[in-house]
């Protein structure tokens, strides 16, 4: 059993070339999923391509009021960016629920996305926030909505040679607020049984003008529940609107029964967590209690 080749290229083009040359090659950011899968034997890549040292891959860049997050940026670094944490607290909190502090000192949101686990914590928050990512590949760069990256558990839409280089968050809209909540048996070191990300905008009198609700661990990929958002828009988030939103969430949930949760429990929790996340997001958007 030969060890995989280990490459530390210094340009995006070299990463693309190395990935394109070997379909079993894997990019290495934080490595918190990749190394675990290699050690368990689940993944046997012919080569590992470490892109952390390429300029711009680590750190948060501000473009006006928008944010560009390098693919190798560890989750804990997101908390250190005060403007990002103030604009998208739900995203930053979601990324900082993954694993433990030690894991998050390495783990990245791009890795969380490309691992394509339906239970990835940062992904519902990113989808709710309307995040996009920049994908580099043999034919150059393209920008893709985050929700289009995972296509099935462990599978992405990335073509051979492609990898995610950046995640982009828009400027926080006026009157905007976001939140992510998850259900796990333990408080830390756990995988979401259900996760719910919400991003919404309230106008001056507290009426919801737009809302996005995304769920984790209730289907093969993260689910953007458009009906749930629609149930909130035009309302002042009263009990009826919240109940309609929860119903839409439960209707869109198509979870599996496994060791981490039953279908019925997951569906029930999806409704509860989405409602609670809406209320947190509304408070952040400036809603009066």
């Amino acid at each position: 059993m030969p060890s995989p080749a280990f490459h530390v290229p210094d340009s995006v083009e070299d990463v693309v070339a190395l990935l394109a040359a070997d379909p079993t090659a894997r990019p290495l950011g934080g490595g918190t999923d990749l190394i675990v899968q290699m050690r368990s034997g689940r993944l046997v890549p012919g080569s590992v391509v470490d892109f952390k040292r390429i300029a711009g891959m680590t750190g948060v860049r501000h473009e006006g009021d928008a944010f560009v997050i390098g693919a190798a940026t560890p989750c804990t670094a997101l908390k250190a960016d005060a403007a990002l944490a103030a604009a998208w607290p739900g995203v930053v909190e979601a990324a900082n629920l993954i694993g433990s502090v030690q894991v998050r000192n390495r783990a990245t949101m791009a890795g969380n996305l490309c691992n394509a686990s339906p239970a990835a914590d940062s992904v519902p928050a990113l989808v709710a926030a309307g995040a996009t990512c920049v994908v580099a590949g043999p034919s150059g760069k393209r920008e893709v909505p985050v929700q289009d990256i995972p296509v099935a558990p462990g599978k992405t839409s990335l073509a051979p040679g492609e990898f995610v280089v950046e995640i982009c968050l828009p400027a926080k809209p006026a009157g905007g607020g976001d939140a992510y909540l998850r259900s796990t048996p333990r408080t830390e070191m756990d995988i979401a049984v259900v996760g719910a990300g919400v991003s919404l905008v309230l106008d001056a009198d507290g009426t919801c003008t737009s809302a996005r609700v995304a769920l984790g661990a209730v289907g093969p990929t993260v689910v953007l529940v458009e009906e749930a958002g629609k149930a909130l828009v035009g309302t002042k988030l009263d009990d009826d609107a919240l109940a309609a939103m929860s119903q839409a969430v439960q209707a869109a949930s198509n979870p599996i029964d496994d060791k981490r949760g039953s279908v019925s429990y997951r569906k029930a929790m999806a409704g509860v967590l989405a409602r609670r996340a809406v209320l947190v997001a509304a408070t952040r958007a400036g809603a009066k209690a």
Partner: protein
Amino acid sequence: MNAPEQMKQFRHVGTRPVRPDGVDKVTGRALYSPDFKAPGMLWGAILRSPHPHARIIAIDTRQAEALAGVKAVATGRDLPTLESLVMHVGEGASDIVDVSHNCLALDKVLYEGHAVAAVAATSPEIAREALALIEVEYEELPFVLGVEEALAEGAPILHDNVFTKGVDPKPDKPSNAAMRVEMGGGDVEGALASAAATVTGRYSLEPVHQGYIEPHACVASWNGDGQAQIWTSSQGHFSVRALTASVLAMPQADIRVTPLEIGGGFGGKTTIYLEPVAMVLSKKSGRPVRLAMTREEVFRATGPAPGAVIDVRLGAAADGTLVAADVEFLYHSGAYTANDAGAGVSSAIGHYRIANTRVVGVEVLCNRPAAKAYRAPGAPQVNFAVESAMDELAGKLGIDPLELRLKNAVVEGDPQTTGLPWGRIGYVECLEAAKAHPHWSAPLGPNQGRGIAGGYWGNYGGPSTVNVSVAEDGTVTVATGSPDIGGSRASMAIMAAEVLDIPYERVRAVVADTASIGVSMVTGGSRTTFATGMATVQAAEEVKRILCERAARIWGVAADQVEWRSGEVTCLDGEKQGQVMSAAAIAGRSFHSGGPIAAVAALSAKGWLPGFGVHICDTEVDPETGHVKIVRYTAIQDVGIAIHPDYVEGQIQGGAAQGIGWALNEAYIYSKDGKLDNAGFLDYRMPVASDLPMIEAVLVEVPNPSHPYGVKGVGEVPIVPPLAAVANAIHAAAGVRLRDLPMAPDRVYAALHPEG
């Protein structure tokens, strides 16, 4: 807390000095078993059964043997054929044939993960590659995982030579009921029929793992002359020696076992899994061989604590006096006969005075890893059922649950389950301390509830050997045969320093290998501070006597004309009266005045007493999600006298944390094909730090009159009450009685939302 009965003034006992092994452990220098390397060492690996129950038809190892770098391959055929022999080593009894077959299966595999072959190679990668080249032909057999299913008519029988023990006359058919234990007396049915209030309930628990951080690992080196060395961490290197020698049919003195630091055991390291296999690979290859388990192997192949199904009926008079208890339980033995039922029977209801009792426990074989000791083995399961039932009974009677326990709690002189009278026990003192503690009367917030539970563990004494020796400069070494799991080096140094009345730092305690000290039983049964401590005190007293005798000889006075005062010998005689001689002065001249100064105490300690504990737990239950948060937790325990209170409190906090984990989230999950589905810490959910509040340990000191410093065992008691304390707190918070562990969020949710 309450004043000790004998107001002895101690200089060291009860202080909190830094542990002598602490710096190495926190700086990463301590040598644990997976760290150890020997020159020329090979890397071993074990092939494990993918099936929960199968006959081994053939094993073809030729391709593995032919792989470059492979130096040895072993199967069960390489272990000697043994006659059945029940050995009382470790914690509880084991048949040496079962121990051997568990190390390497012979004709049948009995659980997924059962070892079937092993290789030793020049690298771990080659060893793993070689495993893939071993071809095993299996005939799959029907399997059974549950205790009730295993006893059902037509269930697959694991062993055709097991006939239920404890049943008279001996059954004529083999059975998965390996053993039946019954105790009790009086008229249970009559008393229940006339009781003012009764409660009935069926409770269940899944097997749980001990969860030690350090996986099992060893290095074995078997020389051409037949002598061998083993380096390993365990709870008892003498047990490792005895079991390994017996499995290999060789003299014990030909094996020298060197204990390495242990990263947790909790009962699970009182047996052997790897050592005979590493020995055989070493013999075949002529090189030292390391075997180390992965975490996954630890889960699949090492002992969990048994799961259980438990039926309880309790009856009481209107004033709360318990009149009858009927308890019957089935414990998972796993693949081989385990030892938990006896302890479960004896610790089920012994903390209460009840005139009419019947307690029955059955060990049930099933296709899971062989159950092994886990902290108070056998007690927490049945205690969960009994203390939940007590809570329910208190509710029915309209009596405060603490008062109900106090009314019925056993005191010194009351008969035990065995009929013998209890000694100087402290259950009532713990209940009184609970009642007086501010926690018991603190206000609760919304969705919060408070539960209480009491329990005990019998503890043990047993064989220990200690050598206390004095260096030429008067400093003292205490060598024991007891692996240090919970701070025993510090405790031994404290006790020796107390006897000799010298500074703690002038006494150093070490754990000696099997060739360097006499036989000592495992560090288990909460026996070490008691039994090894007793031997330490005895040996230190003898050293003190020798030092006095030597001083008298040097002064030329009669032996009774000297006295040990403040760590020195003082002369009482004639013109030398008032002169003092230090240990350093005596020891410095010892080579010419009688020889080196040392004393060995080898004893089998008697007079141990059980420990009792009372735990108070506050939970907050999220009515919408079923999540249970432990808001506040107080663990009150009679500890005899705490030699080093930090480590006593640490034991209590650790036991409570493990019990809370058992209550809330820990469980083995099996797939439909009989395979363990959560063989790792991600999905086998032990609590993490943020799951728990600060656990307050309250030490109640009711000294043991049979120990020179009043010691009672403390390590196991604290895992007994938490299961019911948490369940009772959930009932108080949310109004639902959960009788099945774990009380994970989905289970609590289902109880709160029965409509679905």
